[in-house]
């Protein structure tokens, strides 16, 4: 049995302009001790997925449908009091911005101790000792002293270490990390990723890493889930996703990325704009930007299985699509390259 199993999750938000389905029909599972990368761009629903699992959806949001099984129990059936016991103890979370997710008026020690006192029933002294151990584990120098410091006395990278120490202090089965390194500089990002990998090897938590950075995914994840427009469009092992992507969006993402190990050949962008969740296309959400778009793409797309758990949601692999020719994507904006040909003459100097 999988440790965490999300099935047909649909989370919607009421906005001034109408109801928006940020996550729509998402299913996936996480095995104990594994690392799953959830990749997507802004608005793809990756953060709402993690907040749904934690039941931390904002006031105007509802989990309309689906199940979230943790160790076989549906988290959506839990009361708020039961959820409070699960959050932090069984499923912990690290957020993107370590400044706004720490309480500025409590010392670091108090904040870490709060979790262990609450969840593990430690007394104050035991909890503070445990906090020192955790700070040492995440390699914060002179931990006994730093315990009494406030968040503003730490740098961004150090704060993220504190967050990791806090999240891991109750030895959670699942750690959800939502863009944990996005706010950090690259040399600090490398430190934090190394630390997370090391912590996982040591403590055996499963990690769900939510990120837009495919490089970070390649560095840390065994399995990758690609999201677009509120649902999964492809899932597979990291090697499968990077070496033989099936869904044109995944291909496009990889092609559009400038790479450190490749000199400047021209990038191949994905044309068009991200989908507007208020006006989703009837079939495949990616169809309006897809260079392989066919008439059939306006129908609901099933998942196709490529073996080894590699699945993708795309009609290119459907028999019904045979003989259908790609149609020119509508609303495609004027591509820069073609526009330049008609550039206005330069004003003479």
């Amino acid at each position, binding site marked *: 049995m999988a440790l965490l199993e999300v099935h047909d999750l649909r989370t919607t938000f009421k906005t001034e302009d109408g109801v928006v389905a940020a996550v729509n029909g998402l299913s996936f599972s996480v095995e104990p001790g594994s690392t799953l990368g959830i990749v997507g*761009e*802004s608005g793809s629903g990756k953060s709402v997925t993690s907040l749904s699992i934690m039941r931390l959806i904002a006031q105007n949001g509802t989990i309309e449908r689906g199940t979230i099984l943790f160790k076989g129990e549906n988290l959506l059936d839990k009361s708020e009091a039961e959820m409070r016991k699960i959050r932090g103890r069984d499923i912990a979370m690290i957020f993107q911005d370590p400044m706004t997710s720490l309480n500025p008026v409590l010392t670091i020690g108090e904040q870490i101790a709060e979790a262990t006192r609450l969840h593990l029933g430690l007394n104050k002294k035991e909890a503070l000792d445990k906090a020192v151990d955790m700070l040492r584990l995440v390699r914060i120098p002179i931990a006994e002293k730093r315990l009494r410091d406030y968040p503003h006395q730490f*740098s961004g*990278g*150090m704060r993220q270490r504190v967050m990791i120490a806090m999240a891991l202090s109750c030895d959670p089965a699942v750690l959800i990390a939502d863009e944990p390194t996005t706010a950090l*500089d*690259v*040399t*600090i*990002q*490398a*430190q934090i*990723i*190394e630390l997370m990998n090391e912590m996982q090897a040591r403590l055996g938590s499963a990690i769900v890493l939510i990120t*837009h*950075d*495919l*490089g*970070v*995914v*390649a*560095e840390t994840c065994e399995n990758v889930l690609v999201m677009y427009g509120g649902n999964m469009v492809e899932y597979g092992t*990291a*090697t499968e996703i*990077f*070496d033989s992507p099936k869904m044109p969006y995944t291909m*496009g*993402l*990889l092609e*559009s*990325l*400038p*790479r*450190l*190990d490749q*000199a*400047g050949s*021209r*990038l*191949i*962008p*994905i*044309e068009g*704009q*991200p989908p507007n969740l208020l006006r989703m296309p009837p079939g495949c959400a990616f169809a309006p930007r897809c260079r392989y778009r066919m008439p059939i793409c306006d129908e609901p797309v099933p998942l196709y299985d490529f073996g080894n758990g590699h699945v993708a949601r795309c009609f290119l692999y459907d028999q019904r699509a045979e003989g259908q020719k790609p149609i020119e994507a509508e609303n495609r*904006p*004027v*591509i*820069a*390259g073609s*526009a*330049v040909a*008609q*550039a*206005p003459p*330069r*004003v003479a100097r």
Partner: protein
Amino acid sequence: MTAPSAGAAAAATVAPHDDLVIVRDLYKYFPITAGILQRHVADVRAVDGIDFEIRRGETLGLVGESGSGKTTAGRVILRLTEATKGSVQFEGRELVGLSRNDLRPLRKEMQIIFQDPYASLNPRMTVGSIVREPLEIHGIAHGKEADVRVQELLRLVGLQPHHANRYPHEFSGGQRQRVGVARALAVNPKFIVADEPVSALDVSIQAQVINLLQDLQQQLGLTYLFIAHDLSVVRHISNRVAVMYVGKIVEIADRDRLYDNPLHPYTQALLSAIPIPDPDIERRRKRVILTGDIPSPVNPPPGCRFHTRCPIAFDRCKVEVPAFKEYEPGHRAACHWVEEHGGTAPDLTVTPTALA
């Protein structure tokens, strides 16, 4: 400060390139004051003596982490912020100390594209009037003529002419950045400082804007100073690359030279820190992971600023500022280790003791 004479001398002896911008010994300190008397207590040494040239038609990438001073450097060069001291020459004319009146005609030669396409466009102006404003300020076009020019500019950056009547909030991030580009191009500049122009954009949109900037450069013969923290993007777009660390340039070279043979330990660590989107390569790669944090520019470490995090620092690094020296044609670096080893690059993936 003792550093930069070596760099200046090297530039003088090499055959002169067609330099559009020449930066010499440039400093920008922001004073920190305290008390009701606003007593001057310290300085943020954002830019602390930098030297480089930007050649006509090229893209110079300026990379560094937060607090390295890269954005301040860009702003001081354009005189959006006044230099504390030093020299910036644009087409042979000194910009530092130039009066407002003398500067105004030069303003239209130099433009800037900002990082955040959400904050850098006035939400109450239509896209058309945003792009039109510089035309009128500089007296380039008015009335019907300006309308036509606005339409041309929008088309040039891949937008539709009818977008002129819309407001910024009606556009996505990538489209807004195109508006920012159109505004910068309106006055026919020769030189553009692009300050993290794609950092706020999604990956799939980033590539659109990068390609646009490259096409425009070719078409219009633009010169870019491309400021970014993302070394993959910088490698992609730049002809030459300069690396900044806490107010100083530690290394500058042609793109391929810098990425294939980085001399400075900081450059090496920075390159090593970038994850490559390929799990097979990631598994085989040897990484240099720096310890510690980036020092504060208020109180930069003495000697070489990188010595507090450098795995191969020795005694000299703690006291003496390394000279910014040329080791290969056009390849300058400021490192005592490199100097003492005849310009060879240290191999940081080997344990530090084996290198000593």
